[in-house]
């Protein structure tokens, strides 16, 4: 279910790494929690983010939730498609619905993150 090559945070973001480029989104678990996503607020390109700094906000009809950056770096691309099709986040959270791409400053940040298997265990933990 959760892509093996992704890293996950306790706040339910995911990171996919390609060299020093990191793609960030929210996990399937997170979108389920949010329910129907109706609005996404994206950062400006070029903005520098530290670990756990706010990337933007995702709003469902009932809830607002912030997306935190799993790693530090500079925003090099945002998924403008989400402005007009926020529901993509419910439909394809691990794929089309990526939120930002970062140029990583410190790959060491990844050490603090979970791999898919650990994340699933972590979710089971939440269930009980």
């Amino acid at each position, binding site marked *: 279910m959760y892509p093996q090559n992704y890293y996950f945070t306790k706040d339910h973001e995911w990171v996919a790494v390609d060299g020093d480029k990191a793609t960030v989104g929210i996990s399937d678990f997170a979108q389920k929690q949010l329910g*129907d996503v109706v*609005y996404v607020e994206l950062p400006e390109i070029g903005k520098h983010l530290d670990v756990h700094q706010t990337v933007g906000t995702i709003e469902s009809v009932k809830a607002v939730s912030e997306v935190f950056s799993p790693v530090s770096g500079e925003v090099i691309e945002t998924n403008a498609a989400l402005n007009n099709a926020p529901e993509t986040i419910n439909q394809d959270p691990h794929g089309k619905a990526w939120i930002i791409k970062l140029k990583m400053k410190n790959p060491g940040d990844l050490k603090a993150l979970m791999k898919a298997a650990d994340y699933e265990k972590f979710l089971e933990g939440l269930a009980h």
Partner: protein
Amino acid sequence: MKLTRFNAQHRKLGAKMIEFCGWDMPVEYKGLIEEHLACRHAAGLFDVSHMGEIHVTGKDALAFVQHISPNDAARLSPGQVQYTGLLTSKGTYVDDMLVYCVHPEFYLLVVNAANTDKDFAYVVSQKGAYAVHLDNASDRYSQLALQGRQAIPILQPLTDVKLAPMHSFTFAFGKVAGKECIVSRTGYTGEDGFEIYTLDQDPGILWDAIMEKGTPLGLQPVGLGARDTLRLESKLPLYGNDIDDTTTPLECDFAWIVKFKKGDFLGRDVLVRQKEQGLTRKLVGFELRDKGIARPHYPVFVDGKPAGQVASGTYSPLFKKSIGLVYLPIAKTVLGTEFEIGIRDKKVKAAVVPTPFYKRNY
């Protein structure tokens, strides 16, 4: 946590459950927007068993209801329902409620789940010398709401009550799926539809039968989430957001439930004065002109200066935009008036628009 008598049904449907005023309630099933639109375009079924029911009985029942309600219950004949408020002596809301005239000596008050105990205590405190018996029957009642244009085709095969001839805001006793019920042509969605009350201790069949009949007609179970967006699109007030013990029916634009001519009632003199002196603020509908979603308690700015908070605000699944209700200074309540709402770090443009946002056309 209290369970409604339909809890098993919600679990079976895999509803997302939350605690709501001490009740284990479904907030959504398949998804808020889908549920919202199903109710707008076909029909929705709501478990609203958490609502409060209070019996007012005895020979002074009418006189007592007249005392606690600003609306004129004397106009009700048996079988009719009336929307009104439960007011403090200051004319502000303790709650809003429906008054069912079952008989001139038997009235049923339906109040909000969040306020049931407070309301009952308040009603009791008003008993005084009235020859009435007050009974908080909330836990004995279960209640379903079947709302939407398909409500009659879905419900009629299940009941001996003739639905089509019923006027809105009337009710009848009858059997639904073999269970003794009160079938009331009322609702909280802006759609046509029915609220079904039963004292049956095992009413599960009601839910199952209605779902079975309704599913082919597009019926969906609807959770508390969509219930709120549906009511807001129709500008039906929610206690705690739009009305509370600081607001009066006049301010929230419900002057029509205040019948000064009927004689005295709780809060009357204050309301008379407020009417004479004129309102300083009023509840109006707005929509955002820019991106974003205005939510309750977000700060409001008029001419750049802070002017209170958003009362109700949400994303409208039907209109796909951000709508809401807000108290504005009377001068600023003119349609089209622009103001700002603080959403996190920015101020977003909003404008006063006509309400209700949604009005059914059938």
